[in-house]
């Protein structure tokens, strides 16, 4: 009995040690994952949020990006791709979204992070799910985030859409034709 109690106590101590180590000294992958989840939370807003809270959130979004960030959205169904350059354009886009829809819930699922051997650059591949308040369906898009460690903080330098199903060249042409109309 004594032996088993000692064994359980030792196992609990080891588990506590691992948990403590992971919490206080997280790996770059964990830091990036947590930062991206935080970004999804910051971009989301509800109809109940006040104007000040919304402006604060839009301002806070800038903290996640580098000054020269480039965000390109090329989503099927939307006839043209959209590119945002720099923090200011992103903040304006967030403010615009806040004015155009009542609420938005953004979730980042299945985040796969690959950190370069130098530990200064990383790429995160994830599935973004966006639900607009009052709408039954949600939008899903696979995205690639490129991140860089600047002054000890991981910031996003680039976001690109991933074509989960690669289109045939003819289909891209159709979309380009529609975009040019």
């Amino acid at each position: 009995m004594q032996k088993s109690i000692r064994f359980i106590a030792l196992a609990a101590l080891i588990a506590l040690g691992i948990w403590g180590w992971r919490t206080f000294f997280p790996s770059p992958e964990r830091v990036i994952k947590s930062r991206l989840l935080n970004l999804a939370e910051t971009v989301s807003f509800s109809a109940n949020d006040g104007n000040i809270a919304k402006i604060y959130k839009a301002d806070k979004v800038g903290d996640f990006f580098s000054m020269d960030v480039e965000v390109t959205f090329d989503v099927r169904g939307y006839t043209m791709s959209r590119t945002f350059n720099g923090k200011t354009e992103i903040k304006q886009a967030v403010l615009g979204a806040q004015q155009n829809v009542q609420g938005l819930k953004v979730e980042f699922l299945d985040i796969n992070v690959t950190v370069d051997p130098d530990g200064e650059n990383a790429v995160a591949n994830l599935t973004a799910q966006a639900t607009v308040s009052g709408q039954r369906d949600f939008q899903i898009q696979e995205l690639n985030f490129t991140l860089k460690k600047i002054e000890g903080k991981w910031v996003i330098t680039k976001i690109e859409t991933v074509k989960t199903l690669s289109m045939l060249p003819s289909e891209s042409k159709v979309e380009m034709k529609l975009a040019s109309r």
Partner: protein
Amino acid sequence: MATDSNGSSKLLYWLRVFSIGRNPKFTLIRIAVLVATVYLISKFVLLPIRVQGPSMMPTYAENGVNFVNRLSYRKSEPKRGDVVAIRYSGEHRFLMKRIIGLPGETIEFRYGQVFIDGSPLSEPYLTTNYPCRWTIPPRQIKPGNYYVVGDNRTMPEDLHVKGEATRERIVGKILLCKSLFVSSPSQR
């Protein structure tokens, strides 16, 4: 008085038998085995999914439940006509599509009719209630890729998600021909 206490102890006994069984140790083992079996089956064999969106209508109605058979392509390759689950960056969300083009084939849509290597493709799963008017010029599918599309081709072509899926993105075949527990959106 004695009968009352006898009765209540009997009731307590049956309550105990009902909740934790005659032998609690075995009940605990049974629960652990059941939980482990369900977890292992759902993780490695049959993945439960809920169908969202209209692209596979009318074959698979929205909000129905179905399963992805992960073992279906362990010994064989995907076939034309199979309805498959295609993963995004992970396995929390999937695309549900039908394979109509195999690696290396040339695919074309002519006013809704699919042509494979110049021959018309018979698609018995499509109903006349869902007519298609798409026209896409012929293109060759890359080696190792499968051309997938939904059954609802009344949707505008540019809104319908379709295209080539790499083999490694195909998680498995959809198990059931019709979804289970189809509920209206308000019942969600």
